[in-house]
Structures are given as structure tokens and as C-alpha cells.
């Protein structure tokens, strides 16, 4: 069952099936669900960055008009570690009454010392983020060196560059906030939730575990989903609160976070700051890369960079030394955000490379071509369609393409050249991502006697046009139009499916859908062949038809389906089990290197215009070339790639969670002071998708957002001739860098 050699639909531009429903507001998101007798819930949150609860008085609140139920999650004596931590939830008949009830609650706190700034927490020894004895503020998150680094690293150096780079904490800013509607049945035994989630079955399972009831008693529905970007993998505490409140009230409860809550507790991309020392020999080959970096995962733990991928992409640098520290702060715990760690790695690596190239007087494109990692010899033999086997070839082709698309050779100038106060510049950066698929993703296909085709699975469509992906594959195999396929996703009762994280949904579902479509076709042929007095082998699919090769007869699809009589045909398809994949190399190669694959490369060039009098940077163009293996829907791929670039431009120029040192609170939990670009702030975006069908399907979600910020940073450096070290590259920081070229403001 490889992918069809002749592709009629795969790789073409297919409009998303649910586009009309979405654009006319008829698509019902979790936020839009209104159940009969539905109540509304709000959460009371700690206003202090670090505090202990002295007392909670809810007596007045429980007498306010419309009050329905209350659920406590914190109690007097508890220590809370960030502003926004949950104390309790309250449900009332209307949202207005829920707000009133919340306001009527009295809580006394004992404020405790806090930290919300990385550099300060790093300096302060032995105080105060809290969380018990094992919770040091600063924890080592990686320490590595190649052998004899000190002796060898800088021996052949023709140029050495040492500088600090960094990027601030940002928010996912999902437009549909986190939350759900929870409804118990009359016997209070079965729970249905309409949740905004990237993991439909997991959300149901987690709630079942929380309530200690069988998983079959919880159903999760997510027909439409308003953005997740890595922040929505379960019910979260607000899901538990909503379900508890619904049980206590014996009424459905809607609990969606408001905007301030969304930005304060709905997830963040962690910061990363680091000193980088990089050296190259006189041929421009990078000989040494040394990085000492830190970042904050919030009050949680964990690295904020992808430690093993430093330096990023250019992994064949011979002498590497890296150290990373996680700095805990009194703010929400970081969540995965679109290519976790990679944009930070890319900023730390690619900007240092450009600064080094400038010292060597080498064109940034030449610098990259010289230092690309080679195609791996073992991989060429054993796994010839993998990233390892192809990376040098892919990047070389991509650089060549993007160089022509952007007219680099004509436009590029040495850093800082140009007259007048408005400077223009070009910058380049490379990225990589895994994006592998896996199972289980069972998919069921039903062919009806009326010619209808239904494709069902529990996977979710986050805006990735997943319904359309399924329809394209099924239609390709059955010779139909994607519009002919009815696709149902986002309901947990359709069985297990993998969460939509790490660009794994398209590669995880597509092979299973292909298998299901082939099985359905075969079952269909088996059912109708006897009624047509032919062998199954005599039948084949042609567009819109079933062909009886024996009689050289073309039967329109509906007529062929009519031969099914009363019984529709059903078939399922899914991945082999992990054990089967491990034991059987042929099967493993088919599913993980030909039907799907992992590892992509991408290259982006950004063009900026910098006003050196105001410090305002305008990104005017971004050219993006991306490999995703086999392209399923070119239209959807291009959308996601351009969208990734937009998110990257936002990361480079606008976004930052700003925490107030004194109160410890986020001062911009909104959309006016937390800056996101509008249409007129955006560059022209030129996307080129490399279609490599022999590689199989690879995910597209994360990769195209990774290198944009570094490309913009490099373009600014190229424009003004000085490095703005810390993103976002705001006017203030640009002016500071121009005023003090040896180190800008954070």
C-alpha cells in the first residue's frame, strides 16, 4: 500500500470542506455551545505572584442571585505560586451573576516574596519562588562538551565572535480561550464535554481518571477548535472545575477563560537568553560553538531550549560546549508552543553565525552553504528517504531556490550599508523539525448503497483542514471528489487517536486513512463482484467510475454502489502495532519512511526596512521554502507555512509577556498592550512547498514558524550594521542598539 504513483488529488490545491461554515459563523466551536439550562462559571484566581491563603469566605457569594454551585480547589494554608493560580470555581445561571458571585468572595492572603525576572532570579541565591525544599530557583538543565574543548576549540580560529542573544516569554494567545461545556446525564453517571482541545480522546480519558469512572462514561466533542498551538492537551484544571460544578448544580456548565486568564494561565513559550561564542577558520568553517544559556519555564521545570540541538541545524561543528539553566519564576508553567525550543535555538545559533560571517567578511549565504551538515552516509544506505540521508541536498536546493525568489544576489549588501535614515536589509535562517506520525489512529469508512462515503475518526481539526486531508485521501483511492466524502472528526467515541502536537497529525492519520480507504475499496469490490458475475481482480477504480475490465465496462460510482443492496460496506484502517513495527523491518520502513516520515528542512529570508530615527522595523517580505515530504493538500500546506511566518514575524517584532517586578503580575494580559500584528503590519509572504512524495507525509505545523524571527533579526543587523540582541526587536531596543552598539537593552 504505498502512496499512488499517479496522483489525481494528492498534492493539488483543495478548498477546505468546512470553509463556508467557518467563514459564515455557522461552525459551532466549544465556546459557541449553548445547552438547555446551561449555567456559566468563573474561576477565582490569586492576585499575588506568591502568597499563602489565610482565609476564604464564600458565604455572601453563595447567597447572590442566580448562584448554582461552588467548587474549591485551594484551602486556607495553601501556598500559591503565581498570580492567576486557581482558588475556586463558581457557577451561576448567567455569566453576569457568576461575576457577581465571584466578586462577593472574600479572601485574605499573606503575600510572600516573588521573582518574575529571569536575571534577578538567577542572581538571587536560595530565595523564594517557593514550592518546597527541592524547588531551587535555578536548576541545571544540561551541561555538555566535546572532548578537550578548551585545548582545541579556538586553535584554528580566523575569527571569533562572542555576544549575548535572547528572546522574551510570549503567550500562545489562542483566540478561542481554553475551556469547555460540561454536562452530566440525569443519573449523573455519564459526562459529555465540548472542549477546546488538541487531544479529544485524551481529554475524555483524563476526566474519567479524575472522576474515577470508566473511560467509556466520558465523551469529548471538539468539532471546531479556535487555536491551540501546543497549549491545549487536556481538560486542565478549569475542565475539572467545570465538570465538578456541573455535577453539583445538576445542570450543564460553560467555563471558558476570559482573555486576561487566557494570557495569564493559558500557556506561554519560555524565554531563552544566552552568551554565545563562535569561531571559524579562514575557510569560513565553524570550528567552535559555545553557549551558556538560561530561560524561564515559569514556576514549573524543564529546559527552555532544545539542548541537544545547539548549535541548531549546523550539527557537524567539531567543538561544541553548551550549558543551560532553567530559572523558575512566579508565573504560569510553560507549555509546548509550536516547535518547542526550536525558535529559541534558531535565534541563539543563526544570529551568532551572521555576526561571525560579518567579521569574516563572508556573505551569509556562503557562510551557510559552507557549514551545512553533510548527508549521513549510514542513512543513505539504510534509510535513504530520511532527513539524515538528505539534509545537505535539501538545504542546498532550498537555499538556491530562496536566494532566487528573494533576488538576494542583487539586493544583499554588507551590514549597515546604505544612505539616509531608512535602512533596508536581508537576513536568512534555517530550521528543522521532526513531524513524524504514529498510531493508533483507527479510521472507519462506510460506503453506502446510495454512493455516499463516510470517513470517521476521533482526530481533531485545529484549523489544519484535517477534514479535507481525510477527504482528499479517501477520494483519491475511491475515484471521487473530496466534496463527496463526509468526514466526521472530533468525537472521542470514534476510538483512540494521537494528540495533535508536534506536527504529527497529518503524518499520523494519513497512512491510516489510506489503509482504511484501500480496505473499504477492497471490501466494496468483494461485495459487488459476485453480483456482477466477475472476479474482484476484474474491478478497478477510475475517476467517478468502477471499471469492469473483463467486460471493458465503466459503471458510474452510484450505480456500482447500488449493487450493494441493503448493506453498506464498512472497513477500518490503522497503523500496525508498535510491536509489529519493531519486529518487521519491511513494515517499519513502509510506514515510517515511505507512507510517513520525519525530519524536514526549511529556509527563510526576511527583508526589513528600519527607520533609524524612530527605531521602527517594518518587515516587508518573507520568502519561505519548506520540505514536508508528500504534500497532501497544497492549499492547506501553503496556508500553514504562511501562518507560521506570520507567527514568526510577531515573535520577532511585537510579542512579549511583560511582568511587573513589584507586583509580580503580568501587565499586558490582553490584546492591546500584548501586540499582535494586523494585516497592514504584515510582510508579503512568498511560500514555496517542496513536494517530495517518495518521502511520505511529514507534518507542516511547526517548521515554518521556527526560523522567521532569526531571519528578521539578521535582516535588521544587515540593515543597520549593529546587532539588536534581544527579541522582540522593538523600536526602543533598536534605538538602544544604535546608541550602544556593544550591547543593547533587554
Amino acid at each position: 500500500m504505498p502512496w499512488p504513483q499517479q496522483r489525481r488529488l494528492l498534492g493539488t490545491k483543495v478548498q477546505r470542506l468546512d470553509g463556508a461554515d467557518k467563514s459564515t459563523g455557522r461552525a459551532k466551536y466549544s465556546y459557541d455551545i449553548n445547552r438547555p439550562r446551561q449555567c456559566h462559571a468563573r474561576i477565582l484566581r490569586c492576585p499575588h505572584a506568591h502568597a499563602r491563603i489565610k482565609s476564604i469566605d464564600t458565604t455572601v457569594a453563595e447567597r447572590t442571585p442566580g448562584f448554582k454551585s461552588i467548587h474549591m480547589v485551594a484551602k486556607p494554608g495553601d501556598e500559591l505560586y503565581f498570580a492567576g493560580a486557581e482558588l475556586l470555581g463558581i457557577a451561576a445561571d448567567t455569566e453576569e451573576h457568576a461575576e457577581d458571585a465571584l466578586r462577593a468572595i472574600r479572601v485574605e492572603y499573606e503575600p510572600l516574596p516573588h521573582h518574575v525576572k529571569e536575571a534577578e532570579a538567577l542572581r538571587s541565591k536560595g530565595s523564594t519562588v517557593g514550592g518546597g525544599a527541592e524547588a531551587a530557583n535555578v536548576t541545571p538543565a544540561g551541561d555538555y562538551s566535546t572532548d578537550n574543548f578548551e585545548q582545541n576549540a579556538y586553535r584554528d580560529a580566523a575569527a571569533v565572535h562572542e555576544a549575548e542573544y535572547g528572546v522574551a516569554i510570549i503567550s500562545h494567545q489562542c483566540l478561542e480561550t481554553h475551556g469547555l461545556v460540561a454536562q452530566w446525564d440525569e443519573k449523573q453517571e455519564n459526562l459529555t464535554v465540548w472542549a477546546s482541545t488538541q487531544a479529544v480522546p485524551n481529554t475524555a480519558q483524563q476526566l474519567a481518571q479524575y472522576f474515577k469512572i470508566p473511560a467509556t462514561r466520558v465523551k469529548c466533542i471538539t468539532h471546531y477548535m479556535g487555536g491551540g498551538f501546543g497549549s491545549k492537551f487536556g481538560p486542565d484544571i478549569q475542565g475539572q472545575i467545570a465538570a465538578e460544578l456541573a455535577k453539583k448544580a445538576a445542570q450543564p456548565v460553560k467555563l471558558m477563560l476570559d482573555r486576561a486568564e487566557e494570557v495569564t494561565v493559558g500557556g506561554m513559550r519560555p524565554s531563552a537568553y544566552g552568551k554565545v561564542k563562535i569561531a571559524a577558520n579562514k575557510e569560513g568553517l565553524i570550528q567552535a560553538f559555545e553557549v551558556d544559556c538560561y530561560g524561564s519555564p515559569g514556576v514549573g521545570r524543564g529546559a527552555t531550549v532544545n539542548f541537544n540541538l545547539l548549535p541548531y541545524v549546523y550539527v557537524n561543528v567539531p567543538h561544541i560546549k553548551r550549558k543551560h539553566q532553567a530559572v523558575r519564576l512566579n508565573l504560569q508553567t510553560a507549555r509546548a508552543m509550536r516547535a518547542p525550543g526550536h525558535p529559541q535555538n534558531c535565534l541563539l545559533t543563526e544570529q551568532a553565525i551572521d555576526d561571525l560571517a560579518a567579521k569574516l567578511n563572508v556573505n551569509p549565504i556562503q557562510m551557510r552553504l559552507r557549514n551545512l551538515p553533510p548527508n549521513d552516509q549510514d542513512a543513505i544506505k539504510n534509510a535513504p528517504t530520511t532527513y539524515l540521508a538528505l539534509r545537505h541536498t535539501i538545504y542546498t536546493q532550498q537555499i538556491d531556490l530562496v536566494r532566487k525568489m528573494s533576488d538576494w544576489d542583487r539586493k544583499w549588501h554588507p551590514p549597515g550599508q546604505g544612505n539616509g535614515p531608512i535602512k533596508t536589509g536581508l537576513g536568512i535562517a534555517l530550521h528543522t523539525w521532526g513531524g513524524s506520525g504514529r498510531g493508533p489512529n483507527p479510521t472507519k469508512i462506510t460506503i453506502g448503497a446510495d454512493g455516499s462515503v463516510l470517513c470517521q475518526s476521533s482526530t481533531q481539526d485545529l484549523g489544519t483542514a484535517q477534514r479535507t486531508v481525510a477527504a482528499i485521501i479517501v477520494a483519491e483511492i475511491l475515484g471521487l471528489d473530496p466534496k463527496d466524502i463526509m468526514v466526521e472528526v472530533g468525537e472521542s467515541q470514534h476510538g483512540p487517536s494521537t494528540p495533535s502536537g508536534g506536527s504529527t497529525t497529518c503524518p499520523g492519520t494519513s497512512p491510516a486513512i489510506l489503509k482504511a480507504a484501500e480496505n473499504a475499496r477492497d471490501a466494496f469490490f468483494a461485495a459487488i463482484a459476485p453480483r456482477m458475475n466477475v472476479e474482484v481482480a476484474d474491478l478497478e477504480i477510475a475517476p467517478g467510475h468502477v471499471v469492469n475490465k473483463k467486460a471493458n465496462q465503466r459503471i458510474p460510482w452510484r450505480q456500482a454502489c447500488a449493487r450493494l443492496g441493503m448493506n453498506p460496506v464498512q472497513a477500518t484502517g490503522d497503523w500496525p502495532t508498535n510491536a509489529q513495527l519493531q519486529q518487521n523491518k519491511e513494515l517499519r520502513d513502509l510506514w515510517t519512511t515511505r507512507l510517513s516520515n520525519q525530519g524536514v528542512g526549511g529556509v527563510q529570508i526576511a527583508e526589513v526596512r528600519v527607520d533609524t530615527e524612530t527605531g521602527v522595523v517594518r518587515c516587508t517580505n518573507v520568502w519561505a521554502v519548506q520540505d514536508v515530504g508528500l504534500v497532501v493538500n497544497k492549499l492547506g500546506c501553503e496556508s500553514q507555512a504562511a501562518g507560521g511566518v506570520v507567527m514568526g514575524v510577531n515573535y520577532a517584532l511585537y510579542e512579549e509577556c511583560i511582568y511587573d517586578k513589584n507586583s509580580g503580575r503580568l501587565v499586558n494580559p490582553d490584546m492591546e498592550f500584548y501586540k499582535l500584528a494586523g494585516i497592514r503590519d504584515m510582510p508579503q509572504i512568498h511560500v514555496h512547498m517542496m513536494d517530495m512524495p517518495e518521502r511520505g507525509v511529514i507534518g507542516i505545523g511547526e517548521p515554518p514558524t521556527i526560523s522567521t524571527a532569526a531571519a528578521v533579526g539578521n535582516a535588521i543587523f544587515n540593515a543597520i550594521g549593529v546587532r539588536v540582541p534581544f527579541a522582540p526587536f522593538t523600536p526602543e531596543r533598536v534605538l538602544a542598539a544604535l546608541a550602544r552598539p556593544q550591547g543593547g537593552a533587554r
Partner: protein
Amino acid sequence: MSSSKDSPKSGLSRRDFLRAGGAAATSVTGLAGATLETQAQPGQPPASHIPVLGPGPAKISLNVNGREMSTAVEPRVTLLDALRNYLDVTGCKRVCDRGTCGACTVMLEGKPVYSCSMLAVEAQGKAIRTAESLVDGGKLDPVPEKFVQFDAQQCGFCTPGFVVAMRAVLDRNPKATPEDVEQGLQGNICRCGTYEQMRDAIYSLCNRPRRS
């Protein structure tokens, strides 16, 4: 729907509301039964025609996509919340809830407004149009049609707001240039980053070629 903005029957002006709201606030503090005369300024005639609203739910009627819809809401309820929570008209989305992102955009008498930043009681007697009005049976209005054609939407949560804002620009000026349309979308924010595809849709709607 035709209605005069000056007619007292056309709804409540902001000034009327604030004055009536003052009376309502008074009654909350225990002076229930206080008449509006107590609110009148010396030298002004008593504003006896001003309906007293709140603090409890008041019956309202809204003209949504050509249909009269009735409900009862407290005067503090925004047009957005009345539409979404009380009338189940959910095409307008609540995202920032404070007049920044445009996801709640509806047309009020043909003008795009942030429905999160207006009270429901103020919208009475005015023709309200939401994204749901841009499809008639299976027939899509050209604006959402181009959004679909060029894939100018991903998660789609901002999309109805963009679509309504764009429809409003083109209704006001059928000869709008792409520049004009982009101007009209400055009050809307998309997080998935569909601006590039939106530009394709805009150029197509304006009958302009885009790129060579």
C-alpha cells in the same frame, strides 16, 4: 428595517441610558421607587419618557439578520453577550472582549461595530447583521466565498469578524481598492496568520491581479 435614530421608540441613546442607569444605581442602594424626577437637573423638564432599566433583566428586542428576536437581559449585558448567550447567535466571537481584536464585529445599520463594546439595550431598533447573514441557503456571499477559495482561514475563530468587516467596506464602497479594504481590516486580528491568503481574497474581490 427603517427606524429613526431620534425617535424615542428607536431604542435608548447613550445619554438616555446613562441617566436611566443613574436611577437604577440609586434603586440598588435602597431607594427603590425613586422617580426619574429626582434625577432631573434644575431647570430641565423631568425626563419622564426615559424607561427605567435594571438592575434586573429587561425585555429587549433585537433585529438580527432581518429577524426580530426577543429576550431579557440586564442592562449591563453587551450586544455580543446578548447575541451569543441569550439568542444563540454565535457567529460573532468573544476573543478580547474589549474592543481590540474585531472577532465580535457585526454590522449595525451597515456600519461595522465591535459588539463587545456596545450594550445590548443600545442596539434595539437597529438592523444588526452578523456573518450568518452572508449565506443564503447554499449560496455564499462573495466575501466568504473568496475566503474559502483562497483559504483565508485556519482555525476560523477570527474569520466571521474579518468577513463582516470586509463586507462592510465593500458595501460602503463597491469600488474599494485593496488598500481601502486593508484599511477597513485594521481593527481585526488573526492569530493563525491568514493575512497572506486574505490579501489574495481581497485582490480577487477588488478584481485586481496579484503578483505576476
